[in-house]
């Protein structure tokens, strides 16, 4: 199918089978390999991307669902050489070890802050409960999201 959508801020017009798995389309056709495959059944969150401001599992989504929408992958967060507040906080707070969950975790956090710029600790925990990390006890990740929310809000006020 002919597909129109916005990818990381750029208009895209691509001919692609609508039933193709979004994760494969992103990784294999667009060569954006920052989005990871961890379980293929929507349980680990490694493949999380943002479609129309919502975090979705790209392993459970087909390309047809992109039509007319706006897709953000991890590669789209850095703007003009500046990292997103969440990315900066993940680096600052030592939330990155093996890094394989990082892309999905950051995207989930980004979507959370889109809809809820002042999340409570409980809301942060809930938001990332579908993103598994095996290298940590989630503490540094939760602190990073809190820190990013705080910094974003500070910048805006």
């Amino acid at each position: 199918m002919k597909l129109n959508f916005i990818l990381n801020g750029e208009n895209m017009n691509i001919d692609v089978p609508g039933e193709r798995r979004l994760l494969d389309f992103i990784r294999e056709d667009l060569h954006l390999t920052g989005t990871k495959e961890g379980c293929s059944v929507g349980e680990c969150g490694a493949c999380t991307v943002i479609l129309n401001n919502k975090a979705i599992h790209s392993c459970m989504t087909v390309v047809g669902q992109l039509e007319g929408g706006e897709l953000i992958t991890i590669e789209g967060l850095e703007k003009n050489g500046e990292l997103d507040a969440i990315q900066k906080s993940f680096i600052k707070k030592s939330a990155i070890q093996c890094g394989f969950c990082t892309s999905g975790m950051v995207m989930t956090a980004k979507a959370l802050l889109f809809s809820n710029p002042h999340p409570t600790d409980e809301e942060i925990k809930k938001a990332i409960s579908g993103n598994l990390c095996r290298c940590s006890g989630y503490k540094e990740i939760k602190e990073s999201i809190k820190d990013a929310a705080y910094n974003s809000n500070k910048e805006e006020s």
Partner: protein
Amino acid sequence: MRKEKDYQYIGKELSNDMSYGKVTGNVKYCGDMQSIGMLHMKLKPSTIAHGYIKNIDISEAESVEGVKAVYTYLNTPDTEFDRGRVANYENVPYQEKLFNRHIRFMGERVAGVVAVSEEIADYACQKIKVEYEELPTAITVEDALKVDAVKIHKEGNICVVPEINYGDYDGCVAENYHKSKTHMGRITHLTMETHASRALFEKSTGKLIIWSPCQTAFGIRSTIADFFNMPYSKVRVIKAVMGGSFGCKQETILEPLTAYAAIHLKADVKLVFTREEQIINTMLKHNADITVESKIHKDGIIEGLSVSAVLDSGAYQTITPSYTSTMGGKLGKVYRLSNLHYDGKSVCTNTPINGSFRSWGSCEIALALENHLNLVAEEMKIDPIELRLKNVKNEYEMDIIKKVPIGNAHFKKCLIQGRDAFEWEKRKKECEEKNKSVRYRYGIGMAVSSHTSSFYPYMVDMANAAIHLQEDGSLIVNVGIHDHGCGTVLAMKKIAAEVMEMDIELIELGEVDTEVSLYDYGCYASRTVYCLGNAVKHCCEKLLVKARTVASIALQCNDRHLIYEDGVFYKENNPKLRIDLKGVSKYCITVMGEDVYETYSYNASEGPGVPAAHFTEVEVDTFTGMVRVVDCLSVHDIGKAINPEICRGQVGSGIQQGIGIALCEDIKIHPKTGKTLIDNLKNYEVTNAFDMPDYKTIFIEEEEENGPFGAKSIGEVVVVPVAPAIVAAVNHALGTKLTEAPLTPSVILEALYEEN
């Protein structure tokens, strides 16, 4: 060298190596690698647990457009190899082949397809028709141990490991005798990155290049090169960025397959496992049954200990005999024992293969032994911490099995600081108070354990570094490191930067590439920081000696009159007379006609212990059988935390996995059919961010004399004491004597039912 208070890097928080690349999605893991003409491999799993392939028809698969090759036992070599071999002189079981006619577990690969895309390879796999001749099975250890059990391998099902005897357990006498049996279930390591391997046959050079997120690039190289009878110099293994291991990437599993296809097709071949394939077709953490007997004096002093372990190796022995043997070796690390006996068996079953797991046996021994001692404490009405304080080793006591001192290891401090910080006595009373509620019961539990920091004296533990000063004063450090993602590259850079007193940004330190790296066994046994860190530290010191000599010649003064500070040599009484490292390099190259580099081989002569104590409080819902960890504390004697925040992250990881072992993670295999009943994350219970309890970490940092900047290990020990502490807390809450793990709701409800 700088004094501790002036350290610029050691113990300071810096972002992990490759953080920018990881947080922007730019780092390429093995599965992310793409190339023009790259081929993809998929494996076809067996549908029976035990039997022979009677007929395998690959004609339809071969005719699928885009398929380049289909491999089975009929068209691949019969050569046996062993996934656990990390060096060519190791004595290992050698039971595996690329493809076997004899199928030994359900899901075992029967064929492999290489095609232009993963989808085509997958489709062609489905077109392969296999007829089997089924054999009787031995799915459980109990089945496999029977006298008339089917022989899964010609050598039989059982491998008995050498006994360990110290003193005389049978002859020793004490007032109290206790016996307990602990069962531990299977879990999956659940690395976020599944297994992946890429192999490229480079036509222009005739070399085979393998990318692998592995723990032992040299181990893979020797296994592959010996398999194909190639010179080691023609096989190049490059350690790819690793998305977690916890032991499951310690062994050579996918590489022989991709290597075979790459050589056969003279191509670039990638194989990336799905989660299901990783669970069934790589390795799981052993299920084990461990019996502990003890003779204990009435004052709580242990007179003798006897431990007997039976491990399920799964369908191939691979590393399990060695693992079982190593478990016994862990018994000398924590307690002062006069009489000790250990025996162990590794038993083959028709189930997926079990293998290396974080702590290589410390976890299993701790669960059995700490369960035992917690039950003993309860029976003898001694506080479990008091019981430990009476029996744990003091600093520098001997490990009676390894016959080396345990180093500056502080068990008592771990116990006492933990007891105070956790408010043990106060919580104990609070639990009693809270347990007046009908539905929820509360309990506290603790456990103590240790691990190692090298594999000395099991074998010579050598680590090598080569350091090369660049013409601009920057530094390239070559050390055979495999970072699991837990910050070991950063730790090495910090060590180098601290010794060299230079900006860490000027230091490049890549991971292993067998073509350019000096030899290394691999990064396991928690040896990286202690052994490789020492190699880097001593090599930097040696380089500075060389640089000082060059500086003294360049400045025409006695080297004893030179002070080195922040990357500059200057004359003590005339600081204007100075030369920086860039100047040293320039002078050495242009005037002396030499390059500035040094090499160093470090030989560990100890494996310092890393005491750890875990304290936990649980809530048990007696209606549902659900157990929730309310709060917990891990205390670790780490020597010196080089990356404190990342080390704390690892503690969290250990707690998460420990909770999994204790309460929920369980790969169940059908006891009759051998089918893996839990094969993806839909039905595998794991502790997510929402379920993860609050936890605290205390590091005891009393430097280890010979550790680099006093450091010891952390990466494996973090998981070791967690599960037994939780089991104890559940028993405390319910008044039960449970010893199995995981304590799933059904186990808890059954125990409550029996109690009533």
